[in-house]
C-alpha cells in the first residue's frame, strides 16, 4: 500500500508494474531520431480524418489500443484510464475513449499530464483498486496551434524560445501484479504550482523550469537521494531554454550538477539541428511518446535501472495570458525502476 515518505513522496510498496506501452506519432516526429522506437509513425497529419481534433483523438485511441493489445488484454480488462490532452474539455481523450467503454478520468496537467496520469494509475494499481489501469495522453501540432496560437497557414515568425507541439500519443498499461523483470513505479510525487513571473507564452520552458526544480529537489530531499542515485532524470518537456534554466536552478539552489544524468523529452524527440524546431518540443504527447517507447524499452532491457520521470506543464490559459497574468507551472515526478 502507498505510504508517505517525507513530506511529498508517496512510496508504492506493492510495485505496480508497467506491463505494456505504445507510442504513435505524426510525420515530423517520424523523421526524428527516435522514429524506429515508436509503434507507428503516421505520414499524414490528418490521419484520414476531417479535422485536427478528430485526428488527435484517433492517434490517442490508437496508442491505447496498441498498448492493451501488447499487454495481451482487451479493453474489458481495463479497470480505469487516466487520460488527458491540451484541448479544451479534453476532447481528444474523450473522443478517443468514447467507444472503448473503460471507466475514464480526464486529467489536465498540460504537458505534465503523462506523469500525473502514470502516477495516479500506479497508485490505483498499488492499492489494488485497479487490476489494470491505463495512463495515456496526446497532443497534435495542428490542433494546438489552432487553439492556442494562429491558423496554420498564417505567416507568423516563431520566437527562438518557442517549442513545437508534438503530434503524438503514448499509453501505458499498469498492472497490480505484473511479472518480475518489467519496470515498476517505485514512488510518485504530486507537484506544487510554481510561478516566478514568466509571461511570455512563447517561452514555456522558462515558465516550467522552476516547477521542475522544486519537484526534483522535493523528491531528493524526501528520499535522501542525489543526482548520482539515478540513471536518468527525464524531464518532459522543458526544451533548450528550460533545460538550461533547470540545470542552473539546481546548481544555485542545491549546488548540484544534474547535467550528466539529465535529459529532456522536448530535446530528444526532434533533431535539434536539422528539424527547425527552435527551442525543442512540447505537448502532452511529447513526453508520453518518448516514455512509452524508448525509455520504457530501455528499462525493460535493463539498460536503464532507475529513471526519475518529471513531467512538466505550463498551465497556460490564452485568456489569462491576454489579461496580463503570468504562467503558473507544475511538475509531477514518477520514479520508475527495474531491478
Amino acid at each position, binding site marked *: 500500500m502507498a505510504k508517505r515518505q517525507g513530506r511529498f513522496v508517496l512510496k508504492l510498496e506493492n510495485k505496480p508494474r508497467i506491463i505494456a506501452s505504445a507510442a504513435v506519432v505524426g510525420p515530423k516526429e517520424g523523421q526524428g531520431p527516435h522514429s524506429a522506437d515508436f509503434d507507428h509513425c503516421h505520414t499524414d497529419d490528418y490521419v484520414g480524418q*476531417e*479535422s*485536427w*481534433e478528430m485526428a488527435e483523438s484517433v492517434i490517442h485511441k490508437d496508442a491505447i489500443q496498441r498498448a492493451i493489445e501488447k499487454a495481451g488484454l482487451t479493453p474489458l480488462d481495463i479497470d480505469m484510464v487516466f487520460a488527458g490532452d491540451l484541448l479544451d474539455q479534453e476532447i481528444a481523450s474523450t473522443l478517443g475513449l468514447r467507444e472503448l467503454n473503460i471507466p475514464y478520468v480526464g486529467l489536465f496537467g498540460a504537458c505534465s499530464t503523462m506523469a500525473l496520469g502514470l502516477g495516479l494509475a500506479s497508485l490505483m494499481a498499488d492499492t489494488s483498486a485497479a487490476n489494470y489501469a491505463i495512463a495515456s495522453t496526446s497532443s497534435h501540432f495542428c490542433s494546438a496551434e*489552432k487553439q492556442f496560437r*494562429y*491558423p*496554420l*497557414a*498564417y*505567416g*507568423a*515568425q*516563431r*520566437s*527562438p*524560445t518557442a517549442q513545437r507541439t508534438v503530434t503524438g500519443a503514448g499509453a501505458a498499461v499498469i498492472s497490480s501484479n505484473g511479472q518480475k523483470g518489467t519496470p515498476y513505479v517505485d514512488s510518485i510525487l504530486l507537484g506544487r504550482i510554481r*510561478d*516566478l*513571473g*514568466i*509571461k511570455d507564452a512563447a*517561452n514555456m520552458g*522558462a515558465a516550467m523550469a*522552476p516547477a521542475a526544480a522544486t519537484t526534483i529537489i522535493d523528491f531528493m530531499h524526501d528520499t535522501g537521494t542525489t543526482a548520482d542515485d539515478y540513471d536518468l532524470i527525464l524531464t518532459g518537456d522543458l526544451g533548450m*531554454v528550460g533545460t*538550461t*534554466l533547470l540545470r*542552473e*536552478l539546481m546548481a544555485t539552489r542545491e549546488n548540484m550538477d544534474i547535467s550528466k544524468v539529465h535529459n529532456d523529452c522536448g530535446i530528444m524527440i526532434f533533431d535539434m539541428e536539422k528539424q527547425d524546431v527552435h*527551442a525543442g518540443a512540447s505537448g502532452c504527447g511529447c513526453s508520453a511518446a518518448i516514455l512509452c517507447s524508448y525509455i520504457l524499452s530501455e528499462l525493460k532491457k535493463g539498460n536503464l535501472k532507475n529513471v526519475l520521470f518529471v513531467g512538466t506543464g505550463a498551465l497556460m490559459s490564452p485568456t489569462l495570458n491576454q*489579461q*496580463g*497574468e*503570468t504562467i503558473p507551472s507544475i511538475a509531477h515526478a514518477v520514479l520508475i525502476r527495474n531491478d
Partner: protein
Amino acid sequence: MASKNNQNQDKAYLEMTEKASPNSPIVKNCIKVFLIGGLICAFGELLFYLYGKCGFDEETVKSLVPTTIIAITAILTGVGLFDDIAKHAGAGTLVPITGFANSVVSPAMEFQTEGRILGTGAKMFAIAGPVIVYGCGTATLYGVIYFICSLF
C-alpha cells in the same frame, strides 16, 4: 495590464531567463525583410507599369495592383506556400497588403471545420479585425483633422 495578483515575480529568475533565452537574429532578419519586402513592392511597381501599358487609366490601375497581389497571396496561402515564405520574410510579407490578405484567408481556411457561419464567417477576421477597427478609427480621425484644416 500588469499582473496584479501575482506576488511571485522573481527578479533574479527573470534576469536568468533573459540570459538563457536566445534572441531573434535581428540583423539577418532585417536583411531578409528588406529584400523580400522590397521585392514585393518592386513587383507592385512592375504591375503598375504593365497595367498602364495595357491601356487602363491610373485610377483603375490603382485598384488592379493591390487586387492582383491579394489574389496571389490568397492562392499562395491556400496551397500552403505563404507561411513558408513568411517564416523567412517576417515583416517583409506582413506589412504590405500580403500580410492582410493572408491574415483573412488563413483563419477562413482553418475554421472551415466549424462550418460556414460559426467557423469561416465568424473567425475570418479574428486576426485582421483589430487592423480594420483601428485602421478605420485612424482614418476617421485623420478625416476630421483634414476637414478642420480645410476650413482655413
